[in-house]
Every structure is written in C-alpha cells, then in structure tokens.
C-alpha cells in the first residue's frame, strides 16, 4: 500500500504551478555533498512479512499477563477494565493529537476537562492541567513553577531521597545549566532532615506520598515550616493511594504531581504513561501545559475552551517558562475513563485491596523468620523486606515459578543492599502471594 497520495501527474502539475523543474531542485539549499546520500536500506517487505517480523520481535519478550507480578517501583500492574480500551481505540480519540483548533474538538476538550477535575479532586487542589508526559516531567515542571514563584530570586530545591530515583534524575537533567542547587537526596533523610535544609534561598521542598519505599511519612506540620521559609511544598503522589489517604491539599501542598499510570494504564514495557500536575489557584498562571476551561457560548450553551492561553509558548513566546505545549491526551483519556468507571467507591475498593494484600503478604513473610519487614512507618501497597540472601538470587528462583519478584533497592540506595521492595495490587491473588512466600521460604539459607 502506498502511503504517499500523489501521483506522478499531480507532482508534475504542482511543480509547474510553483515554477520548479524537478523535485531535486527543491533541495538546492542543502549543500551538494549532503544532498541525496546513499541510504543502505533493506528491500521493502510485504504486509504479511512485516506482520511476521513484528510478531517475532514481540515474542522475544515475556508478557505481563503470563506472570504474577510483585514489583512496583513506579509502574504498577493493575487491572484495566475493557471499557478503557474500547473508548481509547475509537478513531476519533486514537489518532487525534492535542487540538490546535481546540474549540472544534469539543469532545476532546470535555474529556480533558473531566480529567483535570478529577485530578484536582483527588489531590485536593484548585486546578490541574491537561497532563504531562509522565510523573518525572511533572516534577521537573513543578521546579520551574517554584522558581517563577520566587521571581528567580531563589535557586535551592530540596528533594526527598524517597522520591522516585528516575524523577529526581530527570529533574536534574531538565534543569541543568540553570545554576540550581538540588539537594537533600544524597543520603537517607527523614522529613525533619529536609526541614533543616530550609532557608531564605529555598524555592521548593518536595516529598513523595507514598514514598518510593511504599511508606506514608509523617507530613504533619511540614507545610507550615515550608511556607514559613517562603517556599512551595510539592507532593509527588500515587493517585490510587489518594483514594484511601488524606489528600495532599489537606496536608498543605501547593502543588501535587505524579504518575497517572496506576489509573487503568497498562505496564506497556515502560510507557506511554501520563504525568498529572495540580496546583492551588495562586500558581495557576505559572504552570506549563494545556488547561481546558468550561464556559458558555453566545447562546448560553455549555462549551469547552483552552484557557489561560497567554501562559503558553504560542502567545508568550520568548517569555514562556517552559517548552511544554502538549499533553499525553490518549493516556489522560484512559485515566479519565478508568476514574469515571470506578468512581470514588471503586477507586477506594481497589486501593483497599492493594493495601490489604500487601499487609497479608508482609504478615506471611514476617512469620518465616529469615526476612524482616520495615514497619517504621505505615505502608500502602509496597513495603521493604530485608532478605537473608541477595535479591537477585531470590528473583531468579521466583522467575522459575512464573513470578516477577520485588525491586532490588540496593541499586538505588547503597544502605539498602539486600533489601527488596515488594508490591501487591488487586491483581495478585492469595494463591500467588502464598506461592511467593513459599519460594522465599525455600530461599532462606
């Protein structure tokens, strides 16, 4: 099948219309030695051959559905109801990108508006944008807002070491060359330790909720201390956990960011995922990304628009504070369908299942004797297990049983060598958990 719609005759006609003899003449601006390089491409394949090759490639990977998965660490194996894909695969949604003539795409705008609304409700914030690429990007953008809020008079950013390691790395990459001091996460640090670092040069302090180790830390009083220093408090949150725990808004957050993957988006070998960004009214004009608003047209009918446009690159141009002028539309739609399908009750139920299964698993492991569970703080659906042998060894044994074991924390936190981050979700059955425990029991020396 040809993907180029023009016939030779049409090409001739177009060239004649613009007064250019041949197509090659259009590339005159390219230096001669770089024009039309020899491309060493293989021969074209038929659709049948391509399908076979892609199938072979995909079969080189194991499929999440064939395994019991006990690993989270930022990407969670939840059940995605059939309705999600059913709506996502509609051509109107699947191929349309972020609308450039937005008001013509009322359906798209409405879906985004609903996404923003639910995210704002979950996080306890005043407003949210249309989404970012992923949780890591959202955190990086929060830093931009904090710097703007301080009118660029402050350049210190405090990050908890228990924010996802990837998010912290991306934040540093994003802001390189900006003369920022991003501190607080090199060694183990409790909330009190982070508070010690606050001074009149701090633009922002960020914590995770739950944190990378699955824990719910004690955030009481944190907001007051951060605000007293004139800085913004940012929470990096798991949206599913928010169905069970106090919203960051109630804890005094100024901005809440995080990864929306737990909301009905499959693991997908790492993506696409979706970042969310919610904020109090005070910062709304500083945030990046698209924002959809609800209004009425001249006949009084409800209508959706892209709003707060002068923040954006197309209008603000060289004064724009971010290069982000897009969103992760399809994934935000998936999260929207999921949240609306599950509703407040359903989301809470999923969160409770995750919580209880994790606590069941922890109790079973406690009883083995060779493993010790970190119970210093309450945990949601992930917890830290100190193992009697290296995590790698245990995971190899688990794999033979069709189980993907927990995350080896030693690779990110040297003081957590031989510690495994174990996760359970609503998808893990009791039988799977019991099998996991049996294998871990066998793995004891």
């Amino acid at each position: 099948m040809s993907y180029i719609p023009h016939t030779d005759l049409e090409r001739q006609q177009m060239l004649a219309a613009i007064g250019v003899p041949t197509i090659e003449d259009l590339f005159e601006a390219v230096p001669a030695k770089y024009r039309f390089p020899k491309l060493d491409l293989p021969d074209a394949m038929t659709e049948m051959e391509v399908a076979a090759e892609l199938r072979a490639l995909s079969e080189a990977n194991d499929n999440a559905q064939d395994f019991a998965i006990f690993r989270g660490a930022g990407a969670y194996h939840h059940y995605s109801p059939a309705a999600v894909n059913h709506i996502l695969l509609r051509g109107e949604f699947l191929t349309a990108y972020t609308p450039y003539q937005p008001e013509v795409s009322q359906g798209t705008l409405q879906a985004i508006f609903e996404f923003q609304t639910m995210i704002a409700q979950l996080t306890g914030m005043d407003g949210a944008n249309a989404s970012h690429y992923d949780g890591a990007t959202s955190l990086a953008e929060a830093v931009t807002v904090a710097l703007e809020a301080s009118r660029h008079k402050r350049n210190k950013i405090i990050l908890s070491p228990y924010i996802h390691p990837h998010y912290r790395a991306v934040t540093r990459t994003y802001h390189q060359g900006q003369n920022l001091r991003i501190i607080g996460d090199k060694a183990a640090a409790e909330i009190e330790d982070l508070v010690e670092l606050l001074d009149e040069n701090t633009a922002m302090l960020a914590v995770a909720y739950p944190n990378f180790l699955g824990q719910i830390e004690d955030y009481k009083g944190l907001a007051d201390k951060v605000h007293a220093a004139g800085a913004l408090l940012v929470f990096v949150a798991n949206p599913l956990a928010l169905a069970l725990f106090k919203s960051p808004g109630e804890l005094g957050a100024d901005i809440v960011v995080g990864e929306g993957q737990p909301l009905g988006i499959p693991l997908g070998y790492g993506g696409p995922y979706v970042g969310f960004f919610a904020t109090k009214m005070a910062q709304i004009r500083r945030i990046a990304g698209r924002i959809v608003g609800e209004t009425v047209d001249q006949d009084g009918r409800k209508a959706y628009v892209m709003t707060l446009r002068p923040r954006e690159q197309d209008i603000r141009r060289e004064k724009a504070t971010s290069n982000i002028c897009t969103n992760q539309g399809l994934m935000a739609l998936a999260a929207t369908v999921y949240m609306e399908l599950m509703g407040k009750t359903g989301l809470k139920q999923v969160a409770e299942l995750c919580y209880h299964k994790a606590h069941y698993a922890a109790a079973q492991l406690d009883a083995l004797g060779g493993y010790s569970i970190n119970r210093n703080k309450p945990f949601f659906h992930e917890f830290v297990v100190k193992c009697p042998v290296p995590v790698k060894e245990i995971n190899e044994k688990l794999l033979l049983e069709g189980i993907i074991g927990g995350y080896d924390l030693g690779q990110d936190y040297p003081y957590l060598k031989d510690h495994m981050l174990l996760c359970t979700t609503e998808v893990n059955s009791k039988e799977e958990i019991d099998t996991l425990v049996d294998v871990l029991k066998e793995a004891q020396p």
Partner: protein
Amino acid sequence: MAWKTPPDLKYLKSDEWVRLEGDTGTIGISDYAQDQLNDIVYVELPDVGTELQKGERFASVESVKAASDVYMPVSGTVTEVNTALSDAPERINSDPFGEGWIVKVKVTGDADNDSLLDAEQYAEWCNTR
C-alpha cells in the same frame, strides 16, 4: 484614531506613563497600550518594598491575546500597588490613566526626564507606528 495622552504625564516609547508629584511617581500603561492589548484579564503586580531600576520589568499585563511586560520609566521603591486590579483588571482598559494605575513608587535617583517623552512626543510616536 486618537488615543488619549494627558498632558501632565511623561511617557516611554514602550507605552508606560508616569505622573510625578514631588518624589512620588504613579505608573501605568497608556490608552494606546490598552487598546492594542484588548480585554485585560490579569495583572501580575510586584511586592510593596521592591526596589527597581529605570527600564526594569516590574509587572506583567495579560490579555486574551498577549502577555505584556511593563517597564519602569523611573527608578524607585514600590510604595503601593493597585490591588483593585486583582478583581477588576479591566480598569486598565476603561481608565488607563486613572483607576487603572498599576504602582506608586518613591522615586530614587534622578528622574532623568530627558529620556521620557512628553504628551506631544508620545502622541506623535503612536501615530507613526
């Protein structure tokens, strides 16, 4: 189109005006500016006490079609900001030289009147743009 240019004010080519009374300066944007910007929806104001140099950006005026920076016509310390603009930014459209004032400053250093245009010069500038 004749834009208002009150004679008792001084102007910048970047469309700011200043009313100098003793060492107090009241600053805003001109009728020409509000006309170009169209409906103003938001004004970002500086903090009281901020020390600013002539030519420094001190505020931002946002309309549905643009976000425009506002620059100091004189050097000074901010003594008052027009907080009414938070709820009624459209005052800049309806009364740019009166209720639409943006900040008041205590003028520091020379008012440097040479680089400021008078009403006639500014009106001329607007007509040739």
